[in-house]
């Protein structure tokens, strides 16, 4: 204990001038660390919810099979594409909004806010992780749907583009809702509402929807993911339109993730 009575005085401030700052975490390594931690969280907490997301979509497929005939109809294409993208909406929009809402309400954001980590690393890392949780569920749903509705299975690879891009758009929206909502309950409600909108406007065949609802549908980013995926079931897909739809997803993703990053900064500095 006598050792402790005379701490070494080698700190630079004693020599005059401010102490050197420790290095800040850089964008990509920090993003990778957040992503990896979020994937590990999935093992603990998210797996039951991923099953729920997939079962919900499979249930909707079964239910819609009762009203929509099997075969190459636009109705069948929208049901399968809509159910697949719904998995993404459930996790990336709804669960991410709830996650950030809870983190903000409980003071958990303080942990990140007192580390020298770029805001974008936290938001993009979490968004990327939540979006990638959805890939297996979306593939399972699409495969099951294609079989049930007699659609080709060859184009399922398109999901490898649809899930990340629709995921980026929906996760950005979810993160922004969670971080901007004044209360945790409102974050939860916004996430649920967004998912319900993605369900109703994505799965129901467009031919039967009234015009105002179609306008609303055009405003929802998940719609463009559904459109892109639905187009690929057709015998001679219009690939230019697929790319255009995915471009909309990407654009919305960039904007919504930028808004979410701004919302994170706002939530952590008061």
């Amino acid at each position: 204990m006598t050792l402790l009575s005379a701490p070494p005085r080698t700190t630079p401030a004693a020599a005059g001038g401010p102490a050197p700052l420790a290095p800040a975490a850089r964008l990509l390594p920090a993003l990778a660390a957040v992503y990896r931690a979020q994937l590990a969280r999935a093992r603990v907490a998210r797996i039951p919810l991923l099953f729920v997301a997939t079962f919900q979509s499979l249930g909707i497929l079964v239910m819609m099979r009762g009203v929509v005939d099997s075969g190459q109809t636009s109705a069948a294409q929208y049901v399968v594409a809509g159910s697949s993208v719904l998995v993404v909406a459930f996790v990336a929009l709804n669960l991410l909004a709830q996650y950030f809402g809870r983190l903000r309400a409980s003071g958990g954001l303080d942990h990140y806010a007192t580390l020298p980590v770029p805001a974008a690393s936290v938001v993009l890392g979490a968004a990327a992780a939540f979006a990638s949780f959805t890939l297996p569920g979306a593939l399972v749903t699409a495969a099951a749907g294609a079989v049930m509705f007699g659609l080709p299975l060859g184009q399922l690879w398109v999901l490898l583009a649809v899930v990340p891009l629709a995921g980026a758009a929906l996760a950005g929206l979810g993160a922004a809702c969670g971080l901007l909502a004044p209360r945790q309950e409102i974050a939860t409600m916004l996430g649920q509402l967004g998912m319900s909108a993605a369900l109703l406007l994505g799965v129901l065949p467009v031919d039967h929807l009234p015009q105002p609802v179609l306008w609303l549908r055009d405003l929802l980013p998940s719609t463009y993911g559904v459109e892109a995926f639905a187009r690929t079931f057709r015998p001679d897909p219009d690939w230019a339109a697929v790319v255009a739809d995915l471009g909309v997803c990407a654009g919305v993703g960039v904007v919504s993730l930028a808004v979410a990053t701004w919302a994170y900064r706002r939530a952590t500095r008061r």
Partner: protein
Amino acid sequence: MSESAGRAPQDTAPCCAVRDLVRTYRAGRGGAAETVRANDGISLTVRQGEIFGLLGPNGAGKSTLVRQLTGLLRPDSGSIEILGHDVVRHPERAARLLGYLGQESTALDELTVALAAETTGRLRGLTRTGARAATDAVITELGLEPLAHRPLAKLSGGQRRLACFAATLVGDRPLLVLDEPTTGMDPVARRAVWSAVERRRAERSTTVLLVTHNVIEAETVLDRVAVIDEGRVIACDTPGGLKALVDGDVRLDLVWRDEAPLGVPAVAALAERAERTGRRWTVRTTPEQARELVSAVTTGPAFAALDDFTLATPSLEDAYLKLGGRHGGLAK
């Protein structure tokens, strides 16, 4: 003993200088809302290598002060300088100067202890190998090996607190800000925390700012303590210096088996000035009076009614009450 052992010398440079800090918030809604001054002109200086405590009851403004030091809250007015950096103007620098242990663990709850510490190290700017090595070292140092691969959410409150403390230590910082670090911990974990703190101070001259309302801990580990009440520093000294304020007095605690024997004149007289908590009466008085009281209650009918009594020298809590702390004691 504890006041002199390990105390930072008076002449070390300031690590953290706070001047006239004011932070208000609005409580209530609409017309009924009123402005509460959570920090009402706080000034204090923490020297390098010092273990400095903020002591005060719940709601005294300790956490508000700490949140401003860590850049989480912006003060309404006043200045904060940490190791020569203006943290009010550059709140983002705080994260590169200090390690902060807050009261919440929700950000880490679903991670394993090892991954929580490693990720925190990565976000503190360490390389992957650096973070992993630092994590292993800290986990060994704190005796967390048996829990390293269990998620924080599955641990007891004290174990979770220790895991969060481990995360705070990964990635060295010259200043550690710890908000009630040992809440819920068993004695083994507490000792691990204080050993780790002492080691960093001895080896790297680490400064520690500690929020606590645990008087015993404050007396044993702190070099100096600022007593905070209703947003103001009402005293700032060594624990020994604060206790010297009440040096003449002793504290007598009497616990009655059932009803106090008010028929005994000495007890009846005491009834008016004792602080009563259920069957426990506490009185602060001079040693002479205490001796008389002890002899009065350890004979005859009073002794028959007495369950237990203690006579003690003053504690920091007594000093706090003497200073005019308005919350009837620190521990709630």
